[in-house]
């Protein structure tokens, strides 16, 4: 069926050999000659004024080379929402006050980690504790302490979205219901902790930083703002990264302080977070209060939706303001919503701040909307798949002023699900249930809060005389397989093999700007840039081949399988390698270089393309204990043209693991701002024995905006996992939840409450 040689074929990871032999170097593994080790002194108070810091004793410790506090840093404020300067609210080290337990106040560089650690204890900080606020509903009260003095009522960001006549539509509805949810956060918990190595060259005044980041460009800008340097004097290199999942977009105190310490000492400095620091001081999924009201016709047709969200932002902005917008956007997906009103508020609180985590707003939002939709279906006597089919988005659907969905395979996905469920799950054992949740997700965001003047993605292709290709792209492979996808796209476009291409990824000095790995953007956006760069070369080669053939210009040529030939008469053509030689030699040795770039245009406010699908989960509940066992998952998705089926499946599998964690066992309880479970002993990831088998079906579509029709496949399936599970639990034992993290005690309690209620009814 496929006319492609490489696209759509299972392709092993281009970094595979490095990763299975231990040769892959992560920032965590790096050492440079003469390198120092940095550590951060962090606040034990959730909110306090810094009265004084005495570093003299620490400086006396042999091996300590520098101790810095806020006043020793260049003092630039920074953040990701650079377009709005007031939201650049981070500092390398706190200067006047600390805003959460873990806010860094001093940094040390020493000849070993042990010495740096020892020196931390020798720094004397005098704090004047201030009243703190920990809950968003408290934070907005008039008498609440202010986390940032310039932000009234601790409101960090607000969003309003509206289309259609909501109030009229609710009046017309036969059925209206409102539900409230309290959604808990989640830590991305990547295997590699935040790590950075900074090396400042005094002679040139230039800085090089290697970092475990999802976006070298964001880090370059963050460092430039923080250090008040020209961004061109900062080179960020992303080595292999041990996972990010949204938690490594912001510039964090590791990279900034390693840089400042390197500038002070003239030596390279490495800062690696401990696992405890990773859990307590790096970005996580926001918790939120959410109210959702829907109005339906008797037949289940959605007429109106109204949503209010208040998120627990924590001490700084990160990408939290984007999460707020996206939560209010995703909660309308994947259904036709004739009228909609959203009001979102993000509050500052005295806790570690929340930002973007896999699913980026959708994971929390869809938990509410997809469990609520099941409640409505039950009340209306409708099948859960039927109510979803009734309202499913179709190709060309538009939300006025917000987004337009071009390709959309949702209906065929639902059909496939229905068919498979009939085959597999028609007989359930006792206390087993099945639940569904439909979903959609973006293929990169059309947002420019970072305020880049550059195209969102760029790529450069250089072809050598022997036909080998050097591909330069800043796309960030953090494990998701972007390196492989980009090499595949380049190979397909030029009609050559994977083995012909050497990739040079993610170095801001040698590659063209790309905004990084977030919002499932790399395949569509960087893929388009790579395809365009390769196409430029292909067109040059085709011109050379056409001249050689002496053919009439109406004949088209193809580049495929290492040949360039007449499309209608494939036997007439040349080897790719020969054409490359002619192209270079015959043109005064002019370098054979192609440049491509991509920025979405006229695609609305959200994303140029949307992946779609539906998930089904079969689960069993132990009534004695409340323990939930996830038996099996069926996922049906439309990610356009899949580029690499191996990688796409990996993304779906992994996102379901994270979605199950959100639904079942991962939470970040705090007490007075202190995170209580900062280790893998107490923070429970879903483990291999708890992981169900997943049946994945692909419903291919072609999206005109994506490279070869591709859309995203990286994050979408995170979001439906927890609501599908909650719906399965309800289907099994008839209990509903207004929150996620359905640990056994929560389910047990709900079962007991239900039992008591039923007994009460019988007595009456």
């Amino acid at each position, binding site marked *: 069926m496929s006319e492609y040689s490489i696209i759509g074929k299972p392709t092993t990871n281009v970094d595979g050999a490095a990763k299975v032999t231990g040769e892959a170097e992560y920032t965590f593994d790096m050492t440079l000659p003469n390198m120092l080790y940095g550590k951060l002194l962090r606040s034990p108070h959730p909110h306090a004024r810094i009265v004084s810091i005495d570093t003299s004793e620490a400086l006396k410790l042999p091996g300590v080379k520098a101790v810095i506090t806020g006043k020793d840093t260049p003092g630039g404020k920074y953040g990701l929402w650079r377009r709005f300067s007031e939201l650049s609210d981070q500092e390398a080290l706190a200067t006047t006050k600390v805003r959460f337990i873990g806010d860094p106040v001093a940094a040390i560089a020493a000849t070993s980690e042990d010495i740096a650690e020892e020196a931390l204890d020798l720094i004397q900080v005098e704090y004047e504790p201030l009243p703190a606020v920990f809950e968003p509903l408290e934070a907005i009260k008039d008498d609440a302490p202010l986390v940032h003095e310039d932000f009234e009522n601790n409101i960090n960001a607000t969003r309003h979205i509206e289309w259609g006549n909501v109030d009229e539509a609710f009046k017309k509805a036969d059925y209206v219901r409102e539900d409230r949810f309290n959604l808990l956060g989640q830590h991305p918990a990547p295997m590699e902790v935040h790590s950075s190595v900074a090396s400042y060259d005094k002679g040139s005044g230039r800085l090089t930083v290697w970092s475990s980041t999802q976006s070298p460009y964001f880090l370059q800008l963050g460092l430039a703002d923080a250090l008040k340097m020209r961004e061109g004097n900062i080179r960020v290199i992303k080595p292999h990264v041990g996972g990010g999942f949204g938690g490594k977009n912001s510039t964090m105190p590791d990279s900034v302080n390693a840089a400042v310490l390197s500038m002070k000492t003239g030596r390279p400095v490495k800062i690696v977070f401990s696992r405890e620091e990773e859990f307590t001081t790096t970005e996580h999924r926001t918790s939120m209060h959410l109210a959702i009201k829907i109005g339906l016709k008797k037949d289940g047709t959605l007429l109106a939706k109204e949503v209010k969200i208040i998120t627990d932002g924590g001490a700084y902005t990160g990408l939290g303001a984007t999460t707020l917008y996206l939560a209010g956007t995703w909660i309308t997906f994947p259904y036709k919503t004739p009228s909609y009103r959203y009001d979102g508020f993000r509050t500052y609180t005295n806790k570690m701040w929340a930002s973007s985590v896999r699913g980026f707003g959708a994971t929390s939002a869809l938990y509410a909307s997809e469990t609520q939709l099941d409640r409505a279906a039950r009340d209306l006597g409708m099948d859960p798949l039927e109510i979803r089919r009734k309202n499913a988005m179709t190709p060309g659907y538009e939300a006025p002023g917000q987004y337009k969905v071009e390709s959309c395979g949702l209906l065929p996905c639902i059909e496939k699900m229905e068919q498979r469920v009939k085959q597999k799950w028609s007989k359930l054992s006792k206390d087993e249930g099945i639940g569904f949740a439909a979903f959609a997700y973006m293929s990169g965001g059309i947002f420019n809060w970072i305020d880049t003047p550059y195209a969102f993605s760029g790529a450069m292709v250089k072809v050598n005389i022997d036909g080998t290709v050097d591909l330069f792209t800043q796309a960030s492979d953090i494990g998701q397989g972007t390196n492989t996808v980009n090499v595949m796209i380049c190979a397909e476009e030029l009609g050559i093999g994977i083995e012909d291409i050497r990739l040079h990824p993610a170095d801001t000095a040698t590659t063209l700007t790309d905004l990084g790995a977030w919002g499932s953007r790399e395949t569509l956006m960087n893929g388009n840039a790579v395809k365009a760069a390769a196409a430029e070369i292909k067109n040059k080669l085709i011109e050379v081949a056409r001249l050689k053939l002496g053919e009439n210009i109406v004949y088209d040529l193809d580049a495929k399988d290492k040949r360039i030939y007449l499309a209608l008469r494939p036997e007439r053509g040349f080897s790719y390698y020969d054409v490359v030689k002619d192209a270079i030699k015959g043109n005064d040795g002019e370098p054979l270089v192609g440049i491509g770039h991509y920025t979405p245009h006229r695609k609305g406010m959200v994303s140029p393309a949307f992946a779609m699908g539906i998930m089904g989960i079969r689960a069993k509940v132990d009534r004695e204990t409340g323990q939930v066992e996830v038996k099996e998952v069926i996922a049906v998705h439309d990610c356009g043209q899949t580029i690499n089926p191996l990688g796409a499946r990996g993304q779906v599998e*992994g996102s379901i693991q994270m979605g199950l964690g959100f639904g079942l066992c991962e939470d970040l309880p705090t007490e007075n701002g202190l995170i209580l479970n900062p280790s893998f002993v107490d923070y429970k990831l879903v483990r291999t024995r708890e992981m169900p088998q997943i049946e994945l079906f692909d419903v291919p579509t072609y999206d005109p905006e994506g490279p070869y029709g591709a859309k995203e496949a990286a994050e979408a399936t995170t979001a439906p996992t927890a609501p599908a599970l909650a719906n399965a639990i309800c289907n099994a034992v008839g209990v509903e939840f207004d929150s996620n993290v359905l640990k056994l005690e929560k389910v047990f309690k709900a079962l007991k409450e239900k039992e008591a209620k039923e007994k009460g009814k019988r007595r009456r």
Partner: protein
Amino acid sequence: MKKELKFVVNGESYDLWVEPKTLLVQVLRDELGLKGTKWCCDSGSCCACAVILDGKVVKSCSILALQANGKEVLTIEGLANGTELHPIQQAFIDNWAFQCGFCTSGQIMATKALLAENPKPTREEIQLAMDGHLCRCTGYNMINEAIQDAAERLQTQKAQEGAK
């Protein structure tokens, strides 16, 4: 006070002097430069640091280097035969059994130990043996499939060697 540590790592003999508090993972990574073994959780709870000590899989973050005195250690760097990957490594590549790769060395070393003990494990036996290994990327199923694939490859290899 430093003590002498004599041991064999990936077939090479080493004679070092280490502080008694030094962990095996620290010696492997910092003294021998074998950074394929990762150090990840600070609490002995993720198994990214797994290596093979005298045939048994151990968490190199949870034992002292001196406990390896007189013993043989195999790390991820010692698994391939020159430029030829070990069948387990190849199976991990072919099954997309890693993404970020940070837990992979530990997963592969544990697989080596598991298949030495149980050459044909079922899915449940694999899950039981690999239960302590945390992975945030793959969702585990593709790792389990790689392990089953590796088991088959090793069986085939053994059969072929037997036939010779």
